[in-house]
């Protein structure tokens, strides 16, 4: 299989348990799945079903307590960030002490792109999302929708191969939420990246060709095009 065809991320019998003993909480249990390149996946499930934990595992932000996760199209865990994997969080995730441009600049700067290049990329990303007039606004001066779009812009500048969004519209109204999802899908299309969005909203889930459902830490497949596989 050529690199172009390799999945972005592969999970094999992955589990994540928090705590130990009788108080232990199994957030993710025996999940095996793979996310192909260009995938568009909606991850649904009730609150506490393990969606956020699975996204964190896929992003390499957390470690499984059992099973393995690999990123065949990217490389090892150390190569994931900044760059190939980007994540948009549910809550406000902009650094409050930096303005919009500086927040968006951060991933390329961390990747060592240099200040001038980083600024250029950040400005371009913000322009693309219609946020050009907010370059020097502080996070607290933005609306919830604007802040999430800035977070999307920040994800965009690293040119990621895997874009993960953890309930990005959870705190937004319908219209603002739609704008954010548009931005995410457009960005993924623009970059040719795989996109996984966890959501409660059936309308958003409907917009994506593949739907995975989490229940009690287990991943149930609900796929229309068979590009993703989830097994119990």
């Amino acid at each position, binding site marked *: 299989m050529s690199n172009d065809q390799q999945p972005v991320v592969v999970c094999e019998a992955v589990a994540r348990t928090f705590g130990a003993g009788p108080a232990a909480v199994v957030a993710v249990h025996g999940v095996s799945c793979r996310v192909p390149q260009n995938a568009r996946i909606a991850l649904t499930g009730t609150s506490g079903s393990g969606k956020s934990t699975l996204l964190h595992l896929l992003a390499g932000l957390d470690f499984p307590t059992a099973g393995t996760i690999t990123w065949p199209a990217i490389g090892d865990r150390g190569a994931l960030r900044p760059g190939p994997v980007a994540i948009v969080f549910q809550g406000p995730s902009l650094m409050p002490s930096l303005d919009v441009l500086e927040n968006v600049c*951060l991933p390329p700067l961390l990747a060592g792109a240099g200040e001038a290049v980083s600024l250029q990329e950040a400005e371009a990303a913000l322009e693309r999302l219609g946020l050009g007039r907010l370059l020097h606004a502080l996070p607290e001066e933005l609306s919830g929708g604007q802040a999430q779009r800035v977070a999307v812009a920040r994800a965009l500048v690293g040119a990621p191969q895997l874009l993960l969004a953890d309930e990005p519209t959870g705190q937004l109204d319908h219209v603002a939420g739609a704008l954010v999802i548009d931005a995410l899908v457009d960005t993924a299309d623009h970059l040719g990246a795989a996109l996984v969005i966890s959501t409660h909203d059936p309308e958003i889930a409907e917009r994506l060709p593949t739907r995975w459902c989490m229940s009690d830490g287990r991943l149930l497949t609900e796929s229309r095009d068979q590009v993703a596989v989830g097994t119990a």
Partner: protein
Amino acid sequence: MPAMIWLRGLLRRRPGRTLAVAAGVAASVALLASIGAFLSVSKSTMTRRAAQGVPVDWQVEGQAGSKPADLLAAVKAASGVQAALPVGFASTTGLEATTGGTTQTTGPGVVLGIPASYAATFPGEIRNLVGTPQGVLVAQQTAANLHVKPGDTITIGRAGMRAARVRVDGVVELPKADSLFQKVGAPVGSQPSAPPDNVLLLPDATWHATFDPLATTRADLVRTQIHARLDHNLPGDPSAAFSSVTGRARNLEVTLAGSGLVGNNLGAVLDAARKDALYAQVLFLFLGLPGAVLAGLLTAAVAAAGADRRRQEQAILRARGATNRRLVGLATVEAVLAATVGGIAGLAIAWLVGHAAFGSGSFGATPGAAATWIVGAAIVGFVIAVLTVAVPAWRDARHQTVAAGRAAIGRATSPRWQRWGLDIICLAASAVVYWLTGRNGYQLVLVPEGVSAISVSYWAFAGPALLWVGAGLFTWRLADLFLSRGRPIMRRILRPIAGDLSSTVASSMSRERRALGRALALVALSVIFAASTAVFNATYQQQSGVDARLTNGADVTVTESPGANVPPSFATKLASVKGVKSVEPVQHRFAYVGADLQDLYGVRTDSIVNAGRLQNAYFQGGTAKGLMKELSARPDGILVSAETAKDFQLKLGDEFRLRLVDGRTKQARSVVFHYVGQAKEFPTAPKDSFMIANSSYVAKATGSDAVGAFLIETSGSSPSTVAAGVRSVVGPNAPVTDLQTSRRVVGSSLTAVDLAGLTKVELGFALVFAGGSAALLLVLGFAERRRSFAIAGALGARRRHLGAFVWSESGYVAVGGLLAGALVGWVLSNMLIKVLTGVFDPAPAAAAVPWAYLGSLTALILAAIVIAAATVLRRIRRQALTSMRGL
């Protein structure tokens, strides 16, 4: 009930929050109570030292018609009297002696009749210099005037009667002549300006044989005093001791029913001591109070770190129907708990500190004073807890929405104090107060020579206090300004630490400038407190050493008796004593300046500066070396006191005639000197008027090179050990004194207080505050931004990237705080020393800088910051996952 539930929850879930506030309260209470403990010990020391310096506690003078025997019995029966002896005072028309073929005559004088046990009963009143301590004794100055020594005969003039003749047995010094010859019962202003020049002491039997006949014809010339020694087991507080002694004296006067008046010497010194004690209380509080304020500010900063969480809790409670009153009530419960825990802990710490540093855990010299200190310190702790916990809660409950409260970052306008220029106002006011104090010659303590009255200008304390506050706020303003306007410079400075992230870090720091400015200002205030206290205390210790050295003259001093005629070559013999490094002979003569008798010191100008460790502050109008050069260049040059220069309208180069006794003829002769400068202090010299001239010129003019004192420097050995060796060489006739012994007895009751204990405590607290403020504020500041660091981590920030933020901010706070602290600390130290000039005797030529302490302080702050930053970095990585789950 809800309060109890809240309190239980608080202690279970957030014990750190309450404990942190309690720790701040404990620090304030401990510092204040420690000062109370120190004052308690100091006051007892003052009382003890003051009482120790009084050989005769009461001089009870019989009034017309009183019988000495009745008076003696009444005094002996008075409360607290341990011993009482009668002393006769008789006026003589003059004394005369014929020695070496010449006859010397003095003016009127006083002849005392003393019992044989007097010297043993009142040690310190009479100091034997030459000959035996019993029999007919002549005062040192009188012996010099008459040129007599043991074995010579003196003729005592009696008004209207034939003169009496006595044979001299010894020469003595009367160190307490002022009080001995006081006019009993007369107010301070009516007392004689100086004790009599001519004094003879006779055994009481001889005195009665000589003057009882005179008493029958001229009763006005003969009187009897009863001298009494009291039990010195007095209350520790000078004020209470004064009341006790004065009460007893009044009681005795009532008992005597007008037949006698009490000259209360002990009461007089205790009166001065109680005023000194009051001053000391203000001084020590003043030195310690910034520490307590600092602890309060740190507590406020700690409490403010949890403000967001507190506001969220308030919002939840409000949503559940809690009224503002209920919210404030709950915060008050938390404040009271912190104040109680902190107060008890603080008092316990102070008790331990008191025992360890001062040897006493008492917080006051009297139970009342102890209660005042305990309650006062506890109230300060309570106020701090209320101001830092309850008041912000009340303010939030009344004026702030949760959303507004969460906006910690932003384009915030300047704080109100900045807009009003409070820092500039404080600094300007400090300069004005300092200038006004300077106009009065920094006379904070008014203790003119020879007068026991004391007054304190408390207003002058406002100068340094306003400087401390103003400088702290101004530092905050500058730190703020630099971060907001100096971003390009900051970016360049940070490049070596932050690399490509320097611009981002500089921006982040600019937005965090309020918290960073506060941390930097608090570190600076801690450094200022530590540095100024350390410099002041070091200077105080230095000057107390100088004072002892001035009094004693050198490490070890041999004072030759008048008429001993010891040549300078004797120095060679003294130099052979083990432990002696150098020996400097200094001549001592009495010389008449007009009608005024003054001390004249003949010095070797090439060696006296080093041998006598002369400081520039001892002279006026030139340096020590410069003026000695002037003397050297002009052999007949002379340095006189400012008072003499003023009295005789002297200008540089003026001729100045003295009458000096010629060693060959024993007659006074006029010797011409030329005025070349002024001297304020000189080793062994009295504090009033004295003169310094070339020893070679004095020897040539008087035909005698006899040495008055040998100033001995030791080569590192203990002065008291060397003194013992020197004593074995010089024998019993020349008193040998050492620095260690002098140090214990010199100084007023205030300057005699050893600040070492307080220094240890204050400097210890200063180190804790400085290190604590630096570390605590950084740790709390970063803890508040856990989320930001988690975001950065999720975006791919490595340890070095996070380190760029942490080390840049830590470096800024450390370097800025240390620089500002050092600069303002230096200014404040000098201001304190100037303002408190009255405390120093003599005034310091320059502040003493305790480099070791300041180095340790810097190292501690840097270490605290490095440890805090490293801990923060480790915790950021460890807590990243937990923090991320909240994103």
